[in-house]
């Protein structure tokens, strides 16, 4: 089974040649790869959209993780927006709060949809449910937002990595924010090439981001990295829609991300041994949560 596209260049060329949105190329490739009907594929994505919507709603009501490290920030940000005092803009903060809401639910072992991973699951839905209020998309356009995000993520996953253990946080929240930026552009009426430019602009600002979760939990700094990822996605999309282009082509940016990931030391790739996890407070939190013997390689019996 041949794929329709393996690079962003091929993806954009296909969309332009056939005068179709990127989301449509992704649906066609999925039909070809899995021999499933369009209806089945779209229905599965609609289900994923509903899971994302429920997670955002749940998080906005306030949740708390078992460790107590995260939870409740989505509510704080929503209340601040309502106060009318926001400086960076209500839409950006709305996206930030909804990204945080999703990741707070994830940290509390609630149900989410990985985009492309669970640790980065807030950015795509957070931005989607924020721009929704401005662009008033149909449900179909919201589903297409996810297919467009998926098309770019597909290229990253196959040519680089979407795993923090393999490529650091740049591979997770970096990929998610760049995917979201590309999808925002399509929903706002931008061209496939502008989606690619938005992806590049955001990814270039995520390069080098390490994966250093405190106590190994997908909480600190993951939740706040989703927050900033959502903000960057919106700004990157606006820049691309304004006509700003990336000097480095998208596929080369992805290749750079891959090489940076490969040269990252293991301590900074989801082992909880470096970065913020290795700070005095990070270590103290780890000891508090797991007890001092966490690092001694104990055996757990049922």
């Amino acid at each position, binding site marked *: 089974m041949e794929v329709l596209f393996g690079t962003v260049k091929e993806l954009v060329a296909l969309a332009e040649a056939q005068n179709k949105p990127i989301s449509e190329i992704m649906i066609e490739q999925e039909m070809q790869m899995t021999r499933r009907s369009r209806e089945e594929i779209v229905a599965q994505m609609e289900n994923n959209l509903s899971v994302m919507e429920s997670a955002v709603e749940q998080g906005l009501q306030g949740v708390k993780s078992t460790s107590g490290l995260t939870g409740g920030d989505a509510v704080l940000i929503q209340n601040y927006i309502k106060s009318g005092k926001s400086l960076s803009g209500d839409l950006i903060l709305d996206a930030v709060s909804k990204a945080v809401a999703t990741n707070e639910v994830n940290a509390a072992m*609630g*149900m989410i949809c990985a985009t492309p991973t669970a640790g980065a699951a807030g950015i795509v839905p957070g931005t989607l449910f924020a721009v929704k209020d401005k662009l008033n998309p149909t449900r179909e356009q919201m589903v297409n937002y996810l297919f467009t995000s998926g098309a770019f993520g597909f290229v990253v996953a196959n040519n680089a990595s979407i795993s923090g253990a393999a490529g650091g946080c740049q591979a997770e929240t970096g990929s998610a924010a760049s995917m979201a930026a590309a999808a925002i552009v399509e929903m706002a009426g931008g061209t496939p090439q502008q989606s690619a430019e938005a992806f590049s602009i955001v990814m270039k600002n995520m390069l080098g981001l390490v994966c250093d979760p405190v106590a190994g939990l997908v909480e600190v700094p993951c939740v706040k990295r989703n927050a900033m990822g959502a903000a960057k996605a919106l700004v990157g999309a606006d820049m691309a829609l304004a006509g700003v282009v990336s000097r480095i082509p998208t596929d080369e940016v992805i290749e750079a991300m891959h090489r940076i990931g490969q040269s990252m030391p293991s301590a900074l790739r989801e082992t909880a041994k470096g970065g913020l996890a290795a700070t005095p407070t990070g270590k103290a939190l780890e000891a508090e949560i797991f007890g001092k013997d966490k690092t001694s390689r104990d055996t757990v019996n049922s």
Partner: protein
Amino acid sequence: MKYRSVFEIIGPVMIGPSSSHTAGAARIGRVARDLFGRQPEWARIHLYGSFAETYKGHGTDVAIIGGLLDYDTFDERIKTAFEDAAALGMTFEFIPEEEEADHPNTAKIVLGDSQGEIELVGISIGGGTMEVTELNGFPLRLSGHFPALLVVHDDRSGVIANVSNAIASQGMNIAHMEVGRKEKGKMALMVIEVDQMFDETLINELKSLPNVTQVSTLAN
């Protein structure tokens, strides 16, 4: 191509907190249980790399046990998998290993009951996608590029022909196939990657073939 479907990128729907360390781990456990074919009575789980360092925080342990109880990635019962296992009388042990594995997220699961046991090595490659790299000492090279059928069978003449005929009769094409055995005349394993998704009809037909002892699937 490591990833084939958009739903490996926008998905899976899962219980948090980590796609690689929770959802991928649950899938490794579930494949192990599928390959074993029934509820195991005991399990020993060796963890390597990032799995060994951070399994508690990510719920990797409850996820693997959840998988062994046949829970899917989005099954809320993953959270109570330890208690559920205890209620079923299943004992388990997690052993974080110092030695480096080829992949940072590697688990070796040994499980069994009074009737037998199996050993499987799985890796979680990101976004909830996993690969099986070893089964009962057979290196698998099961890439996850294609939907796959794993057929455990007795090493007898005609079994391979019967299995490939059953697949052909469904109009399906085999993309890649490998057959391995431990000892002449004993247990053998066929790993068959096909070009398209298969359905229950084919799996039931394969299970009914003589000398086929277990059929498992990887629908990546």
